[in-house]
């Protein structure tokens, strides 16, 4: 290949990625400015859509209130506990089912049936069982996140190279060594992908439980703000929840990079 033809686009790409950040900032700022001006000049109804500066001011004021931080803590706690339970259960079940062919064959149809059941269908049941206690949120989170992780782990365990597996067996590795040296390293990228998907799903269900059932947290505050007509606060809380979503996303990607730093392959998400 001629070098001129390949280096020129590369240069262009590098220059762009440098300015991408600036462009993105300009984009965010412009949208913010638009959401400031439109309500002020009356194109958007101020009663339903306050100018962005008012939302931002409200958010900053919230940051100084202990009650806000309590709610953030409650939301994060539910998310973290639910996600942890789902992770442990999903990985354990995935490894066990994945490593035993008979088990995999027998459970496949059941998993395929249970997985797409929307966990929000369980809302009335958990309300009866636990009311507004944190358990209500946890059940919804664990149900939704568990399948994401389980399916990824199953893909991962199935991805083990048969030649490598046979080699390990022919050297009479113990079951534990086989798992540690062969199965786990292969499955790890999938486990991490499952973690990233589950982290996002867990936040969705935590907020849903707060909003719909009234489990304490930012979502409940949001619902109260909305129903009491505190429009600016409603938007400020939506922005706050969005920021938490971004932080969780960045956190999951950071974990992914950390865990897979040594891993030779960069894997794409398995269609789940």
């Amino acid at each position, binding site marked *: 290949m001629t070098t*001129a*033809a390949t280096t020129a686009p590369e*240069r262009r790409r590098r220059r762009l990625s440098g300015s991408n950040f600036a462009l993105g900032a300009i984009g965010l700022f412009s949208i913010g400015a638009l959401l400031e001006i439109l309500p002020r000049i009356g194109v958007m109804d101020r009663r339903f859509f306050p100018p962005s500066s008012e939302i931002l001011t409200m958010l900053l004021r919230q940051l100084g209130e202990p009650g806000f931080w309590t709610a953030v803590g409650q939301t994060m706690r539910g998310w973290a506990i639910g996600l942890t339970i789902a992770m442990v259960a999903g990985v354990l079940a995935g490894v066990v089912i994945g490593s035993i062919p008979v088990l995999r064959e027998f459970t496949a149809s059941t998993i395929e049936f249970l997985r797409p059941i929307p966990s929000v269908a369980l809302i009335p049941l958990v309300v009866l069982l636990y009311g507004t206690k944190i358990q209500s949120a946890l059940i919804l989170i664990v149900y939704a996140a568990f399948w994401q992780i389980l399916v990824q782990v199953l893909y991962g365990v199935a991805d083990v190279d048969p030649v490598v597996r046979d080699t390990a067996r022919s050297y009479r590795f113990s079951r534990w060594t086989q798992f540690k040296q062969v199965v786990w390293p292969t499955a790890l990228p999938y486990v991490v992908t499952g973690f990233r998907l589950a982290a996002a799903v867990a936040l969705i269900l935590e907020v849903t439980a707060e909003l719909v059932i009234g489990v304490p947290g930012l979502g409940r505050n949001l619902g109260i703000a909305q129903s009491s007509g505190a429009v600016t606060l409603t938007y400020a809380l939506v922005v706050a929840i969005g920021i938490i979503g971004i932080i969780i996303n960045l956190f999951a990607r950071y974990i992914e990079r950390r865990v897979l730093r040594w891993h030779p392959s960069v894997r794409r998400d398995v269609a789940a």
Partner: protein
Amino acid sequence: MSIDTTPAPRERIDTTTPALDVRGLKKVYTGHGRDVEAVRNLTFTIRSGELVCIVGPSGAGKTTLLRCISGLLDVTDGEVVLDGKKVTEPPPGMAVVFQEYGRSLFPWLTVRQNIELPLKEKGLKKAERAEKVQTAIDAVGLTDSADAHPWQLSGGMQQRVAIARAVAYEPSVLLMDEPFAAVDAQTRADLEDLVRDLWHKFKVTVLFVTHDIDEAVYLGERVLVLSHRPTVILEDVKITLPDERSQLETRSTKEFADLRHHVYEQIQKAKQGFRPDGDTA
């Protein structure tokens, strides 16, 4: 991508009319505060019905040149004229066969559909399309695979599909960008003969770009030797081999060896940075 329904002229009896005229072509990539001159002052003409090979050392800007000629890339200076019209965008009378055969075919279409789609875009009627597609498929030996998808075929077969698509399009000039660089040697020899064969059968004008000296000499009527970057033409070599060529016979003749030797020398000089008189890199 505008619609231009003027049909490309199909008369090829008169081999003195220029099909493609490249005059003073220059391409400079403007980068981040640094300009890179890829092609400098290239001039050559291809007459209707010719089969011309362009050969140059790696880094000679072959792909840049080809993208300029096909209208995919803007030129910095000079002009490319196809059928008497200046090229500013991909012109109607041109078809290109890319090196990356697997990526130039539409994986969601069958072989037949891949060949037919450009004809549809040209505005041909259904019956006419079907006939041209079938002729092209038969000519490249894909009769049995016409309804397969490209990814079901081997690399060499996929490149045959791309060639059939280009031939069925009936271009004034067929550009081929190192089309056989990614196939194995045996397939490559077969495909070289296929190109000669189609050139005879369909009387297409072919501009064939390659880095392979043997391939250039074996295929071409003329071989244009490129210099190192910034690219100019070092020499226009006339290939005096007989019209009927065969892998076994032709390649073992003394004439072939001499021509090969000559072009090889030129390429070596090009690699060492030799430039024609009065030109400095």
